């Protein structure tokens, strides 16, 4: 059914944005409530490049991701780094502050309304199958999401960087002792997470919307993905995102009067029953 | 004579990894009992199991004849089973006197009193002050715990436990990290404890162990290897092998 399909596409977007948060939490043990701001940055950058610079969609999106990555590197080196050893409360307060700053900045430059986006011709339209309408853009999102998910998994389990990442997660001190530049690993991982968030934000303008309130609106969703999927767990994040996407879209379609209540209730119940998430915390697997 | 502290087939597994293997230990009232063994033998884990800090995978713990396996830590403390930690767990932002007063208040059941100020509980404060006096901590009574030298902090760690007036005291490497000049003083305080108090001591300093203990248990790889009086332990070939060298004399 179309609802299911839309839900999966939505879940893919959530996965792209949330996986960075999950890895940051699992790796640096840092609670970053401002994570949505990187997605928002990607979204606005993409919108700007499309409308002002007239760039083609398939060029604007990666550039948006790169911008978010650059922002991630700068912020990580200058600010985030100082709070790795701080309490979770301090990190929360700090990231809420960053979040407020990003929201007001977006508001100042772009106004409060939803950003419109014009998708390129070849991504518009639908494929008609018996009993099922498949939006081409939705298909595109799912394809991109799956590729990146497999790519990430390969990066983490097969490459040298991935091995260094897993070592740094398990025991930063010993990793340093082995000659691994843990600081560089942290920065690169943060940049990667931000890039993916920016990508998700850019690709998601059409489905998730884009306005200055984006970081606050969606932060709970991202946290749910991390809570359910287990921090640092890529496979878990994917499954959790898909579940959440389907649940959310279906809920809004079939039970609009209940709204987001069910989502929050599910998260709370989940955290009570299994504080470590459905899939548990694992070293960026 | 009923044993004051006893375990029956006490075991603890983490996944497939057996940390404590079928430990059956009996300690008599008033004993001066030492627990030795190489690093990783599971001595601290045993104390964690005895006190309820960890839940066992199997087996039981008996305190003064009563089965306490299901009781929470603080309930065992109320029955007289108290421990110290290998790495100090102190209240860094409180003064020394405040910390000990807190421990005394808990023992006296004052912890739920929310209306009267701490300062009005003269009996508790006096008792705390006297305990500080016996441990030679009076000069730092009003200092914050955070800034004090390690030796003093170690004494505070023990003071916190003594404030609970234990009947059975489990000491986890009390002299760890303390310069030898100060560890003597520390041990004198322990030796001066009333003879009714049962003491189980984990230590690596064999000098101190042999001077203090009346019985010694040896643990290796999560299990009890042997238990006997110090002279017999000192001559036991297996114990010497376990330590791989000159830790024991004789």
């Amino acid at each position: 059914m179309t609802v299911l399909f839309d839900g999966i596409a939505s879940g893919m977007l959530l996965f792209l944005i949330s996986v960075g948060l999950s890895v940051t939490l699992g790796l640096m043990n840092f609670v970053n409530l401002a994570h949505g701001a990187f997605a928002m940055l990607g979204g606005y950058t993409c919108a700007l490049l499309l409308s002002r610079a007239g760039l083609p969609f398939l060029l604007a999106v990666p550039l948006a991701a790169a911008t978010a990555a650059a922002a991630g590197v700068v912020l990580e080196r200058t600010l985030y780094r100082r709070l790795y050893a701080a309490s979770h409360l301090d990190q929360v307060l700090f990231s809420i502050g960053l979040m407020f700053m990003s929201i007001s900045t977006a508001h100042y430059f772009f106004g409060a309304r939803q950003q419109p986006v014009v998708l390129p011709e070849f991504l518009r339209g639908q494929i008609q199958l018996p009993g099922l309408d498949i939006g081409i853009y939705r298909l595109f999102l799912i394809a991109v999401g799956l590729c990146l998910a497999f790519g990430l998994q390969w990066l983490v389990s097969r490459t040298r960087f991935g091995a260094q990442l897993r070592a740094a997660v398990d025991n930063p001190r010993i990793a340093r002792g082995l000659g691994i530049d843990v600081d560089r690993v942290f920065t690169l991982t943060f940049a990667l997470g931000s890039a993916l968030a920016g990508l998700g934000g850019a690709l998601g303008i059409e489905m998730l919307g884009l306005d200055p309130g984006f970081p606050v609106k969606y932060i709970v969703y991202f946290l749910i993905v991390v809570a359910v999927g287990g921090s640092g767990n890529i496979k878990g994040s994917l499954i959790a995102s898909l579940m959440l996407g389907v649940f959310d879209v279906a809920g809004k379609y079939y039970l609009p009067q209940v709204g987001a209540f069910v989502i929050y209730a599910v998260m709370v119940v989940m955290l009570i029953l299994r504080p470590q998430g459905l899939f548990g915390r694992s070293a960026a697997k | 004579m009923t044993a004051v502290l006893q375990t029956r087939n006490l075991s603890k597994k983490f996944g497939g990894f057996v940390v404590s293997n079928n430990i059956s230990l009996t300690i008599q009232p008033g004993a001066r009992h030492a627990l030795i063994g190489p690093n990783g033998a599971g001595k601290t884990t045993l104390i964690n199991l005895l006190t309820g800090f960890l839940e066992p995978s199997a087996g039981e713990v008996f305190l003064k004849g009563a089965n306490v396996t299901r009781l929470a830590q603080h309930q065992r403390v109320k029955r007289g089973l108290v421990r110290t930690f290998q790495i100090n767990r102190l209240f860094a932002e409180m003064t020394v006197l405040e910390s000990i007063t807190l421990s005394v208040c808990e023992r006296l059941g004052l912890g739920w009193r929310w209306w009267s100020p701490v300062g009005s509980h003269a009996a508790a404060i006096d008792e705390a002050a006297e305990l500080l006096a016996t441990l030679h901590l009076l000069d730092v009574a009003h200092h914050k715990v955070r800034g004090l030298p390690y030796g003093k902090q170690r004494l505070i760690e023990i003071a916190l436990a003594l404030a609970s007036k234990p009947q059975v005291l489990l000491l986890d490497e009390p002299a760890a990290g303390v310069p030898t000049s100060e560890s003597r003083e520390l041990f004198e305080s322990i030796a001066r404890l009333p003879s009714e108090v049962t003491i189980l001591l984990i230590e690596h300093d064999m000098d101190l162990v042999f001077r203090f203990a009346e019985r010694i248990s040896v643990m290796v790889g999560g299990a009890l290897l042997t238990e006997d009086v110090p002279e017999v332990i000192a001559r036991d070939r297996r114990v010497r092998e376990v330590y791989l060298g000159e830790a024991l004399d004789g």
Partner: protein
Amino acid sequence: MNQMNHRIALDLDPLRKLSAWRPAEYAFWLLTVAAYFLFPKSLALMSQIAITALFALSLDLILGYAGIVSLGHAAFFGLGAYAAGLLSKYGWGDPLLGLAAGGLVAATVGFVTSFLVLRGTDLTRLMVTLGVSMMLYEAANKLTDFTGGVDGLQGVEMQPLLGMFGFDLYSRTAYWYSLVVLFLMFWLARRLAHSPFGLSLRGIKQNVARMPAIGAPVHGRLVAIYTVGAAYAGVAGALLTQTTQFVSLDVMAFSRSAELLLILVLGGSGCLYGALIGTVVFMAAHHFLADINPQYWQFWLGAALVLIVLFARDGIMGLLRKLPVPGGKQA
């Protein structure tokens, strides 16, 4: 007169006198009274400051003293607000009854949810408290028949306080009412903070693993203080309803919880006066700056939060304590 333990020659005064009222405290409360005469046109604002200060106090009890991190404390504020509002709307307009209702409803929900909140790590706690408060917000949003939804709860009419003092347009009654409630509840909180119970909370915050080892039932203590904190927040919410005769949906919004955290960090947590001073500074700044441009306000709010966490983590009270003079206070 020095209280000494003569047997061992230790001056016990530093501990025994810890709970005595300091001159600066008297000065503070006299100022709140003087404010009535000094700023007669700003009584509505000052009532709101008193109410928010009570709310901040409630968070200090659970966060500053017991170390329970909560991203959803506004839930209790909102519950108290709606409880008082609904009570008045359906005929029982006596203010004190409304206060009691607000406190009771919030305390009950606090007690029940404490078992969820106290499970797990700090991180789980952050998410559970956030989740619960968002659930309640959504519930209030959707149950429009009950709460008025986005439009808010209207029809709140207050009877005169103690049968004598009507709520007037100039907020005179509102100010004294809020101030007296604040002072009484502050006084209770102060006694609690200096009591053995308060000492045990500080112990829990500083080293939670040590507390069971000295015989303290940690879970029970935390449930108790969480319930008390919820009750305080509920009373503050009820006060808001009664003084503004309206309940807006945003009493439960995340932004309210976030702002409260900022206030507590700004003033300094763990000493009660930090909550009060942080509220005064924050709301004064809000009053003068927010109207200029809401976006500037939110930006500088965020920037302030970032800077405080990085450079002045103990807030205003922390800075005051560093002064080498009797100005440094230790509550």
